[in-house]
């Protein structure tokens, strides 16, 4: 631990695959579609890249030209060893990222299987600090459940990834996914893909879209809440990845107030939404707004809990949060919670000595 007093649990690290890495793990005809027909996952963000090296930290690109996040030894040197991570959770990135794919369900399901195998062999089995996320083509529900059953029991898979995009996952049609996750002690991690934040459309500028990403996260929490997912699966937890955390008190107050008026519509909700959030919903800290200590502590007080925030770097992306710079100073007990213990208490499959 060269620089930090607290060993960090980093809840958002983006490893990156390249198509050639997973071709031999793909079944036919899907290998054929990529190798011979040049299929690539469609992504269509209509903006200039946000920073110097696209969506990555410019210093995270590999010396041999491979993209950031694609090499374990480099990640160890630049992140895990340098900062002193106790553990990190992989959440994948970009193209191809089967958990965030649109359309073509068959390809998405095949890609998820190949990706999970690649992730286990290339990352989870190679560094004891690294934990993984189960990729599924959630739009293909039954194939998704099958994939959770296949790789969910892996000891280092800690969550199932669901994209925040244009499908609301609280719909009862998708509940078998939550059932399978809960069965295997996997949490649900939601990370935005390319969510519509302007009435189903892209706003004119990237800065508008990026500012409003938390609204897409709020929609998913609200949707799962009032569709009764947390009541139906009481051992399931949801972690919202990469929208920051300053919107949490607003959402808790708003849902509680609405629940007091409109409970009759969602009678399956037995607990106050804010209580459910405190018990079952967590948030990664990045991208942290630059709050003063006073503002930060006020926010924690408004949440009514100091156990909801889990530190994340978002390495190797451009809006990376440095562990020693992103959050204001806080007392050691709170720091221990946010940088490590809250994540350990949330993920049943992370080692947690406190629980024996």
């Amino acid at each position, binding site marked *: 631990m060269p620089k930090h007093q607290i060993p960090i649990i980093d809840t958002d690290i983006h490893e990156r695959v390249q198509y050639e890495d997973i071709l031999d793990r793909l079944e036919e005809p899907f290998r054929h579609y990529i190798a011979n027909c040049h299929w690539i996952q469609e992504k269509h963000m209509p903006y200039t890249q*946000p*920073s*110097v*090296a696209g969506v990555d*930290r*410019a*210093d995270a690109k590999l010396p041999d030209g491979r993209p950031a996040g694609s090499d374990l030894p480099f990640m160890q040197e630049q992140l895990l060893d340098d900062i002193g991570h106790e553990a990190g959770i992989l959440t994948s990135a970009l193209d191809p990222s089967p958990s965030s794919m649109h359309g073509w369900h068959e390809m998405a399901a095949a890609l998820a299987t190949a990706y999970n195998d690649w992730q286990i062999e290339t990352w989870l089995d190679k560094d004891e600090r690294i934990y993984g996320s189960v990729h599924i083509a959630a739009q293909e529900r039954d194939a998704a459940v099958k994939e959770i059953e296949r790789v969910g029991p892996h000891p280092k898979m800690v969550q199932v990834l669901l994209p925040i995009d244009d499908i609301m996952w609280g719909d009862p049609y998708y509940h078998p996914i939550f059932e399978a996750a809960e069965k295997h002690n996997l949490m649900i991690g939601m990370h935005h893909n390319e969510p519509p934040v302007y009435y189903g459309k892209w706003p004119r500028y990237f800065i508008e879209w990026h500012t409003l990403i938390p609204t897409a996260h709020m929609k998913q929490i609200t949707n799962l809440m009032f569709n009764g997912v947390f009541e139906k699966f009481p051992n399931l937890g949801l972690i919202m990845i990469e929208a920051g955390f300053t919107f949490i008190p607003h959402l808790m107050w708003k849902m509680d107030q609405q629940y007091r008026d409109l409970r009759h519509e969602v009678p399956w909700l037995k607990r106050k939404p804010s209580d459910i959030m405190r018990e079952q919903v967590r948030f990664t800290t990045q991208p942290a707004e630059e709050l003063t200590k006073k503002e930060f502590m006020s926010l924690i007080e408004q949440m009514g809990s100091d156990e909801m925030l889990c530190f994340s770097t978002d390495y190797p992306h*451009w*809006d*990376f*949060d*440095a562990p*020693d*710079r*992103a959050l204001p100073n806080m007392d050691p007990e709170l720091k221990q919670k946010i940088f490590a213990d809250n994540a350990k208490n949330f993920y049943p499959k992370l080692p947690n000595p406190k629980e024996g």
Partner: protein
Amino acid sequence: MKEQVVCKTSEIQPGEMMKSTFGKQNVLICRTPDGDFHAFMNQCIHQGAPLDKGMMCGATTESSEPGDYQYCHQGEILRCPWHGREFDIKNEGRMLANPDKKIPSFKVRVEDEDVIVYK
């Protein structure tokens, strides 16, 4: 240490930059397109990113109107390799979005072929 040769003028072409050390400090030497040399701390004031991994480029300016971009200061803007924050090399390293903030800078002079940083 009050002054130090950090590089030769021929080592940095106009529009380019390189990292060096000044005593124990990591510094960044930038050469703007007009040939001038500038020296800054090689660490972003936001979250500590190594600035030499960033980019020297131009910037859209505050004289832009909605929907109408004005772009200039080519080669005079330093962009952070992480969050992309922009700093004006020729205006004391001030941040474009918040000119009250600036990257700590050092004085520079050129003697013959030597680029000398001093306090």
